[in-house]
């Protein structure tokens, strides 16, 4: 297990390196600099700005100093907010993103697995069809469509929940964003779970367990559930990534102060330093989450470790 973890850790290093390099050079290819505003700056001012941010160094020098900065946790300066570095802004936004992200993750796993098990047990009966219909809605309705509908129904018409804002992290403020964020993943996880459980229930060892007189509930809990969970676990890595990118939309719609909003604002304002910093941060986070999920997977399924 330790050896596997070490090897898996080694493979993430080139992944991260390629990601950071690609992002860096794509952004440096950008036509025009970050200081080409509506009003042209005097050449001397521009040269000073470029010198201050190190933009007049040769590209390779910039690249290596950026790479060195990333290793030290320094993501460079933001070009529009002079008072906060990129890392500082991310540190401000991160807790909000992590809170709604992890809540949505837990909700998606719990509800997804539950719905999948129910669908498999009541296969081709009313409950299964009802769950399948709901899942289809979750798959087809994009989050930027569900969110305003929920806001309209629960926020304005029924007046049960606040339409947006952080509200000091009150639960009522979290319900809608977390639900919207989790919904597509509830759908995907329950689909995977249903399929896997149906397949596992056809296995010989389940017949043996039933034959030796165990009740259906015990068979499922003690024998069927664990092997049926493997496809769900392998989906969790990508899901963590989707949750992070999905939270960009959710944070924008519900007015939450997470990194997603910093990222979108930076992208729309062409703050290249901030865009690069947030993308690099997202990549690192997602690669690390993938690594954790893979390790969990290896722990569940010993065959993977070789």
């Amino acid at each position: 297990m330790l050896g596997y973890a070490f090897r898996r850790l080694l493979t993430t290093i080139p992944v991260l390196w390629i990601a950071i390099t690609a992002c860096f050079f794509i952004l440096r290819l950008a036509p025009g600099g970050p200081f080409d505003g509506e009003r042209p700056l005097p050449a001397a001012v521009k040269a000073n700005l470029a010198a201050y941010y190190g933009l007049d160094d040769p590209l390779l020098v910039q690249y290596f100093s950026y790479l060195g900065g990333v290793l030290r946790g320094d993501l460079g300066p933001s070009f529009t907010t002079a008072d906060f570095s990129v890392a500082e802004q991310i540190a401000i936004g991160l807790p909000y993103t992590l809170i709604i992200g992890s809540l949505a993750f837990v909700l998606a796993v719990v509800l997804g697995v539950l719905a999948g098990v129910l669908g498999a047990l009541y296969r081709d009966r009313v409950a299964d069809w009802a769950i399948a219909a709901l899942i289809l809605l979750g798959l087809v309705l994009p989050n930027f469509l569900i969110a305003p509908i929920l806001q309209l129904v629960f926020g304005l018409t029924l007046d049960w929940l606040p339409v947006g804002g952080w509200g000091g992290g009150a639960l009522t403020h979290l319900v809608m964003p977390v639900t919207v964020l989790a919904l597509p993943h509830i759908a995907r996880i329950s689909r995977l779970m249903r399929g896997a459980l149906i397949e596992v229930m056809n296995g010989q060892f389940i017949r043996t367990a039933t034959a030796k007189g165990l009740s259906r509930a015990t068979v499922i809990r003690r024998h069927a559930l664990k092997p049926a969970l493997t496809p769900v676990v392998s989906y969790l890595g990508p899901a963590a990534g989707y949750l992070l990118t999905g939270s960009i939309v959710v944070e924008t719609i519900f007015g939450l102060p997470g990194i997603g909003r910093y990222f979108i604002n930076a992208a729309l304002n062409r703050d290249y330093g901030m865009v690069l910093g947030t993308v690099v941060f997202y990549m690192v986070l997602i690669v690390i989450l993938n690594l954790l999920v893979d390790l969990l997977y290896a722990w569940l399924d010993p065959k993977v470790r070789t």
Partner: protein
Amino acid sequence: MSAEAGYDDPDTRPLDSARSTRGRDAWRRFRRNRAAMTGLVLLCLILLAACIGPFFTPFDNETPDWSAFRAPPSLEGGHWFGTDQNGRDLLARTLQGTRVSLAVAAVATLVAVMIGVVFGAIAGYVGGRLDQAMMRFVDVLYALPYILFVILLMVIFGRNVYLLFAAIGCLEWLTMARIVRGQTLSLRQREFIEAARAAGLSSTAIVRRHIVPNLVGPVVIYAALTVPEIVATESFLSYLGFGVQEPLTSLGTLIAEGTDVFEVLPWLLWFPAAFLVTLLLSLLFIGDGLRDAFDTRGRG
């Protein structure tokens, strides 16, 4: 029912029956799938509406109607879907937006299929070190959230429709490459490939004439499953403001604009939303139907 009719059923018909081709069987199974057929009909209707519709609407998508700002939908006024804050006809704009979404889906899928098939077929056919290297490369890209790359590209090169097409296509080919590689690996062991090699065909010719045609089934299935994903990705990007620019629009852009005002002008959200959801649903049903039709293992 005559005995003749029994032969039409692909499950019971003897294997050696004449005129039986994989494609025809698949089509027969597809036709019996009610959800998939409904999806196909809906998709055709949307396609027709998006392509021919604009010739029949009395208004175009750019010109404001100075007598009708924020007009609610009505049949008498001529604005069936109503108008927006600038007096532009929503029906015309929705149809135009649907066309953009469909075009993105078609072009991006094509790009993804081409890159994926070529990449996967080469990796699978050549095998060995090259295969290892190519697949590691795919793994690396797989681990990265590609949507961020698309946003990055859109930030840099401006909101260019053609770039959007290419960017989405260039990033959606990974799964296709994996599927094609796996399929090629198993095809390579088969006798007819060996026969072709023994007959002196070059590797390029074998790949082109024998491998690629045999990949059609899985490629079609996976391409069909990719299309709704691409439509959703495009509307997601447009929603965030990285998609097409005025006066052109897309379903995602329309939904984003509708969301801002949907308390007072709800129709600006509902109509584009209905189009997008119908489109996604029908594409999803078609994709599932194709998978079930071609993949005979999972049935029963």
